[in-house]
């Protein structure tokens, strides 16, 4: 099998032709979209646009087939046990809110505990927090080890308190660290907790196998996986999806409605109120099909190479503090120029057309734990090149030079 050809890969993104001068290293925030995705969305609107389900006519039936094929395709990619285990949402945030809300009304009772970790994205903290406050559920937080990994010893101790639910990210959106999710799920299950994985970054790194991983929920956003904005996936085991109280009520999720009584439809409709993001689902499915044309190992190798080069280059720049470890890293590096505010560093990179993000990256509890005011985050994708890495390194050098002048 021939190796991964980054130029061939990159050519499929109109963005890089349109913006040839930019080095885009803000991939953990959102990714660019290949032609395959934009074409699928446009083709749907031009040829098959129609509302799905309950359609008496062939156009609607065709749209329904395309929409349901998108679901099956994604379910296949995740190795879900059934297509209806893939629920379309507007994004990872919506999915996590649905889970927190949904469990709060069925599984969780006042006085129960749930378990999160110190490095979660706000989307995996605040939905729980809000409902926990209302319902009197207690949140425990797994601390980190010295090298900013999840402290598994503490994790086990906290599991012993008997949390009903455990929710953690597959990959930290700040540090890029790949968590030992298989082990964490197994431990949580052994402790009798329902397991939720925030896969917003994890899905980009690898094709997760739901039946092997055996988690109860896994969520992600389309826009971070080469797909459109406004679409996300809530994967759940049938058993657990059935136990979620829907956060949205409306069309299609309903079986019968009267002003006296309303009964719900079956999965997946029960959790998909209203007209779904049909084009979004089709676009995300196209992204996944397109991605499968590439060999995951080769893509990962390419990204590892970028990361290695980047770490090597960073070592040669003075006054750089790196928060991310190079091992078990999915391609995200959080760093600071010593004594400087990250937004100054990011702005100086911006002046050199290197796009990175700075701040607390929706993970304030992590930063207060680290006692840092924030960080500059360089996040790499498969379409980044060694040239991107080098331009970023040069720009960082220049920034340090100006800051320490």
């Amino acid at each position, binding site marked *: 099998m021939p190796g991964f050809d980054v130029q061939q890969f990159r050519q499929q993104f109109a963005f890089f032709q349109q913006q040839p001068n930019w080095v885009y290293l803000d991939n953990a925030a959102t990714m660019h979209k290949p032609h395959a995705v934009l074409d699928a969305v446009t083709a749907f609107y031009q040829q098959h646009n129609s509302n799905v*389900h*309950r*359609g*008496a006519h*062939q156009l*609607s*039936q065709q749209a*329904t*087939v395309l929409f*349901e094929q998108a679901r099956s395709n994604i379910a296949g990619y995740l190795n879900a046990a059934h297509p209806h285990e893939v629920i379309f949402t507007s994004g990872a945030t919506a999915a996590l809110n649905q889970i927190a809300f949904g469990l709060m009304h069925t599984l969780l009772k006042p006085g129960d505990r749930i378990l999160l970790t110190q490095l979660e994205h706000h989307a995996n903290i605040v939905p729980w927090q809000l409902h926990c406050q209302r319902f009197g559920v207690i949140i425990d937080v797994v601390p980190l080890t010295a090298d900013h990994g999840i402290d598994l010893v503490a994790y086990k101790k906290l599991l012993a308190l008997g949390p009903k639910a455990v929710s953690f990210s597959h990959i930290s959106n700040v540090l890029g660290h790949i968590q030992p999710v298989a082990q964490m799920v197994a431990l949580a299950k052994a402790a009798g907790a329902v397991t939720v994985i925030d896969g917003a970054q994890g899905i980009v790194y690898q094709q997760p196998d739901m039946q092997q991983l055996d988690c109860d929920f896994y969520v992600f956003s389309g826009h971070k996986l080469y797909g459109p904005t406004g679409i996300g996936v809530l994967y759940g085991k049938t058993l657990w999806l059935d136990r979620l109280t829907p956060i949205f009520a409306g069309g299609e999720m309903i*079986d019968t409605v009267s002003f006296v009584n309303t009964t719900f439809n*079956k999965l997946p409709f029960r959790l998909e109120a209203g007209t779904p993001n049909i084009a979004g689902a089709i676009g995300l499915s196209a992204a996944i099909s397109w991605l499968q044309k590439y060999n995951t190992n080769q893509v990962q190798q390419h990204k590892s190479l970028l990361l290695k080069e980047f770490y090597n280059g960073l070592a040669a720049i003075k006054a750089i503090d790196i928060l991310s470890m190079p091992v078990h890293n999915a391609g995200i590096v959080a760093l600071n120029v010593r004594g400087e505010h990250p937004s100054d560093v990011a702005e100086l990179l911006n002046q050199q057309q290197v796009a990175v993000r700075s701040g607390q990256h929706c993970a304030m509890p992590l930063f207060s734990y680290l006692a840092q005011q924030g960080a500059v985050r360089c996040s790499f994708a498969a379409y980044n090149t060694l040239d991107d890495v080098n331009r970023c390194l040069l720009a960082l050098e220049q920034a340090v030079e100006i800051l320490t002048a």
Partner: protein
Amino acid sequence: MTLEQLLAETQPALLQIKQQDLADITAAKDWQSKYRVLMQLGKKLPPVPEKMKQPHLLVKGCESRAWLMHYHDKAQDKHFFVLDSEARIVKGLMAIMLCLVNGMTSAELAKFDLCHKFDQLNLKPYLSQSRGNGLTAMAERIKACCPAK
């Protein structure tokens, strides 16, 4: 009325459909003629009395409501079905389905390929569109009556 009585009334109707109407449908050249025959099929099936249309017999996934009843002659391992639908096209299509499956053994039912059969009858174009309505749901429900091995 009992299910047995209803079945007794249904079987001759199905026989007639099998012997005559199926050929007419297959032979029909335009959709109008096909649908004219289809419309008549439903009328030939005796209606299920309102009292027997219990909620648990409702088939989900139909735009119109449809009811399905099942009788398994265990001694001979033969499956029989009775149905009714508010919509005439659905009822007609289901009448065809019943012609094909009534009296099948469990093994035959498990193997039965509705799609293939409808193709042979020149009804495929209809069937392929029918994901939204109740036909596939009905076929699944019928096959689900097969005792699991």
